[in-house]
Structures are given as structure tokens and as C-alpha cells.
């Protein structure tokens, strides 16, 4: 039981971070497809950062900066060249994969997987056998701060206005692309943190480390109805489901390839069920 809870919490941490960041871009009116890439690049650079500086904080900061730089590139190219955000998002994912494998190849001479020995571990403490990491606490605090930011700060309200009615922003003389840029930088910050957690918790970087978490993040927002209040329960649903699938992997002898597919099957089911509910609700309202 304890291991189930521990697994749930360890899966919840990155999902919560990613979906909080993605929610900000979603409210600004852009579907952020680049979450995977933003997570991946930070996962690599934060673990390299930790191994060089020997400090978790500095390493995480390096990872977060790398992912914020990528988010900046994505947002700037999209707005300056008037490109399709969706395609540039895919390009960002591809770019992140490329940068990561080229970096690991030129530094460590492997294509993707790097294991670090004697790496500083992230600090955990346990309450009654349940391990709680600093990352989890920080991500919960950040969720609360984001709630305050989106509802009470001028920038947060501008971001939401940008998604609801971009023309009203323009009539107030506020730049839409600048507002979106801020949203993307915030999203980059959160994905960066999620990436740091993934690689530092694992003690190594592996190719495809984000393993679809960016996409699950998008579906979490969908499940929460783009409302930050429901973000934590929605993320928790996915974390529990994935922890359960790991748990059942241990006690049944399903082939590993099939077990790997289970989180996606679950995500797909949730996506379809929610869209049916939304559709029926709209039908009644009409």
C-alpha cells in the first residue's frame, strides 16, 4: 500500500507541474504541444548541471533555463513569423530530441542514455512510510501561487483575457504576442522543473524520458475543464491510474509492451468520456 502511494506521489509531481504550466498557455489561447520537448531538454541539462555544479538547486536552475530558452524560441518564432503554433510546437519537440541526442553523443559518446554515478540525490523525508520530496511540496505551492497569479495579478488577468478575447487586449494597448510570450515562459519554467524532477529522481537521463507526460498534461487540462481548481484532482486521477498499472504489472504476467500502453489507453478513455459528457451537456443547453 505504501509503495502504491509513493508511486502515485512520484508520478503526480511531474504531471502536476506540467499541467499547471500548460494551463497558463491554454488560458492564453494557445495549445502548447511542445510540453514533451520542454520537459526533455530540461531533464538532460539539469542532470548535467547537477553533475557539474554538485548542487541540486543550481542544476535545476540550469535545466529550467534551458527549457525557458526553448519556450522563448518557440513563442518568438511563432509570433514574429506568424507560424502555426501547433506545427512549431511539434518542431520544438523534434528540436529538443535532436539537441539532447547530439549533446549526449558529443559529451558522453552515447545516443541518448547517460547514467551518472555518485549523483547528489534529491532530498526526501518520510511521514509514516510515505516519502515526500521537496519537489512535490514546491509544486503544490506553485499551484497555489499560480491560482493567485491568474486571478489577482494584472499579468495573470491579461493572460486570461488574451485567451478569451484577444481584440479586447489590443483595444487596451497591450501586446498580444508579449502576453503570450509570458505565458510560454511560465509554461517553460514549469516543464523545466518537471524535467529536472524526472531525471534527478531517476539518477540518469534516458532517451524519451518524458514518455508522453506532455500529452497527458494536455488531457489533464481538458479533464479539468481548463479550470485551475480542478487541476489537482485531475492530475491525481492520472497518477493513481499509472501507479495502479505499475502495481498490476508486478502481480500479473502481462507482456511489458502491453503494460506500457495502459496509461495511454486510460488517457484516451478519459479524453473520449469527457468529450462525450461535454457534448451531451451542450446538447441539453441548446
Amino acid at each position, binding site marked *: 500500500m505504501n509503495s502504491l502511494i509513493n508511486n502515485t506521489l512520484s508520478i503526480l509531481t511531474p504531471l502536476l507541474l506540467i499541467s499547471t504550466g500548460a494551463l497558463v498557455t491554454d488560458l492564453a489561447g494557445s495549445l502548447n504541444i511542445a510540453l514533451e520537448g520542454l520537459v526533455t531538454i530540461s531533464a538532460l541539462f539539469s542532470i548535467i548541471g547537477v553533475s557539474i555544479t554538485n548542487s541540486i538547486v543550481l542544476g535545476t536552475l540550469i535545466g529550467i533555463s534551458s527549457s525557458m530558452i526553448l519556450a522563448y524560441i518557440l513563442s518568438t*518564432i511563432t509570433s*514574429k*513569423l*506568424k*507560424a*502555426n503554433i*501547433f*506545427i*512549431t510546437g*511539434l*518542431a*520544438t519537440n*523534434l*528540436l529538443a*530530441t*535532436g*539537441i539532447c*541526442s*547530439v549533446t549526449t*553523443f*558529443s559529451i558522453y559518446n552515447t*545516443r541518448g542514455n547517460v547514467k551518472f554515478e555518485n549523483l547528489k540525490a534529491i532530498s526526501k523525508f518520510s511521514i509514516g512510510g510515505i516519502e515526500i520530496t521537496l519537489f512535490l511540496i514546491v509544486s503544490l505551492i506553485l499551484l497555489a501561487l499560480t491560482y493567485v497569479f491568474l486571478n489577482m495579478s494584472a499579468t495573470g488577468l491579461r493572460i486570461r483575457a488574451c485567451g478569451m478575447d484577444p481584440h479586447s487586449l489590443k483595444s487596451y494597448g497591450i501586446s498580444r504576442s508579449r502576453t503570450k510570450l509570458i505565458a510560454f515562459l511560465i509554461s517553460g519554467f514549469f516543464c523545466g522543473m518537471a524535467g529536472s524532477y524526472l531525471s534527478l529522481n531517476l539518477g540518469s537521463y534516458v532517451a524519451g524520458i518524458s514518455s*508522453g507526460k506532455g*500529452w497527458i498534461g*494536455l*488531457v489533464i487540462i*481538458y479533464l479539468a475543464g481548463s479550470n485551475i481548481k480542478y487541476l489537482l484532482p485531475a492530475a491525481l486521477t492520472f497518477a493513481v491510474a499509472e501507479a495502479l498499472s505499475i502495481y498490476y504489472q508486478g502481480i500479473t504476467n502481462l*507482456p511489458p*509492451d*502491453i503494460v*506500457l*500502453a495502459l496509461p*495511454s*489507453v486510460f*488517457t*484516451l478513455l478519459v*479524453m*473520449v468520456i469527457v*468529450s*462525450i459528457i461535454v*457534448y451531451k451537456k451542450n446538447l441539453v443547453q441548446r
Partner: protein
Amino acid sequence: MMKKLKNNKTLKGILTIISLSLIILVVLAFLLSDEPLLTLNAIFVGPLSNLYYFGNTLNSMIPLMLGGLGILVALKCGLMNLGGEGQIYLGALFASIFAYKFQGLGYISIVIGLIAGFLISSLIAGISGIFKVKYNTSEMITSYLISVVVTSITNYLISSPYKDPKTNLVATSKIKYMLHDILLPSQLTTGIIYAVIIIIVLNRILNHTRFGYENRMVGYNKEFARYGGISINKTYMLSMLLSGGLHGLAGGFAIVGTYGTAIKSFSSGMGWNAIAIALIALNNPLGVIPAAFFFAWINQGTLIAMQTTNITSDIALIVQSCILFLTTSVVLLGDNK
């Protein structure tokens, strides 16, 4: 006159994108390689340096062209099929299984394999189509998620029930009848001729038939199409089925032409490349031919560079991503809807 001007801008934009991506390749070679000139020579001249490399370059165009065409069909009516990875892979598996089962029939087994690949992948894409039509579920996210599931299941099928016990590879049984080789010793087969024929036929369908017209109209303006009496749901479904089917063919041709057996995760990355190719083709079915050639050249060139110098072929990923960044730019290319 206006149209000509726009085309001129588009052409300039494409040239800008291609030259930018080539510049990036040069910069990467100088940054990462000990012998940058040798690397660059391998990348740019390598694919043309002998018949073997040139044939392989042309050969790797086949799945890219067909997959790109699949993306393009859906794109024309405003749909995004993100499930190409899984559709190509599963189509390839079905093609290999069916071509193997029916190899008693001789060369007809090739056709049976291709049809099986077409049908299964069009079914897979059709699932996303049904949910889009019935409940307005984003086809982009469902097709991607289905593709992840399909990829895992295909991995399982290849490594367990359908694995050929006679080889050390994790692969299905090798089929007996395959397309004829041309340009030996390279891997190029007559598949490239069939692929080009498919492109020409599809160009005809998209530009000169009722389905093509309706597909285009729904993409231009959904509401207008609805007023015109076009069934949007039917068009969405047909478009999605055709899109998936073409991905299945892409996988199928890889089997009956190049590999003869479905090897575990052999098609990884093809689906994403197909998206880029459809976008560079600028919504023109014939455009997938040069677009696929450009991609195949860079892929083959970086592979040769990896064999001859100390550089990873993954630099191709960076170049491809730069192309993707720029291909939808209205500033560079104008509005090409």
C-alpha cells in the same frame, strides 16, 4: 497577377527555408565534427556519389511520400492526423503477415499485403474520425494517443506471437515475393514507380473529383460548405479513412519493397517526417515528391556522414525541426490555404 505574385513570394520563402536549413547543417558540422569538410562532403555529395547511395535515397522517399500524402489529404479538410507513427507501423505489420500467409499465390500476395496494410490503418484512423464526427473529440489528440497504444501492441505482436523463430532479429517471417529491384546494388525497387502513380492519381482525385472538391471546401470554410449541402461528417470520415490508408500503404511498401519483414520499431520517426513533408509540399499533392527527396537526401547524407566521420546522424533531427519551424510561416510563404 496577384496569384503569380504570391507564388513568387512562396518560392522565395521555400528557397529561404532550404538555404537556412543547409546553413544550419554547415554550422553543426563545424561545431561537432573533427573533420567538418569531410562531414559536409558526406552529407551533401554522399547521396549522389554512387548508385548504391543514390538508389537508397530514392528508396527511402517511398514511405515518406505516401505518409506525407496521407497527412496532406486530412490537412486539406482541416483535420490533423497525428497518428502516422502507429498507422505506418501497424500497416507494415499487417502487410508482412498477409503477404506471408498468401505467398502460395505468388506475386498476388504482394497486392494482398498492401491492401491489408491499407485497410487496417484506415480503420485505425477511422476511430479518431468517428469520435470527431460524433462527439467533436479533438482528432489530433485521439489519433496521437491511439498511435501510442497501437505502437505498443505492434511491438508486442512482432516480438511474441508473430516473431520468426528462425532469425535473431525481432521480426516477422520474411516474405517470399517482393517487388523487383531496380538500380542494384541499392535497395530501390519498382515501388517508387507505384508510389508516384498513386501520387498522380490522388492529385487527380483531390483536384478533379467531387470528393476532392468537398474535401477542399470543408477545409476552406466549414460553415459555407454546410450551406452548400456538403455533409461535413461524411467528408471528415472519408478524409480520415484515406489518410490512415495512405499511411498503411507507406508501411506496406516498406515491407514488400525494402525489408520483406516487419522489424521491431523499424519505422520509428517516419510519421513525424511525413508531417513535415506534407507541410513543405504546401498543400499540393505533387509537392510531396521534391519535399520527400529533400528529406531523404538529408537523412541519407547524415547516415553516410555517421559511417565515415565522428558525427551522429541525429543532427538531421535538428535540421528537420528548423524546417518545421519555418514551413507554416505566413510571413515567409504567404497564406497557402
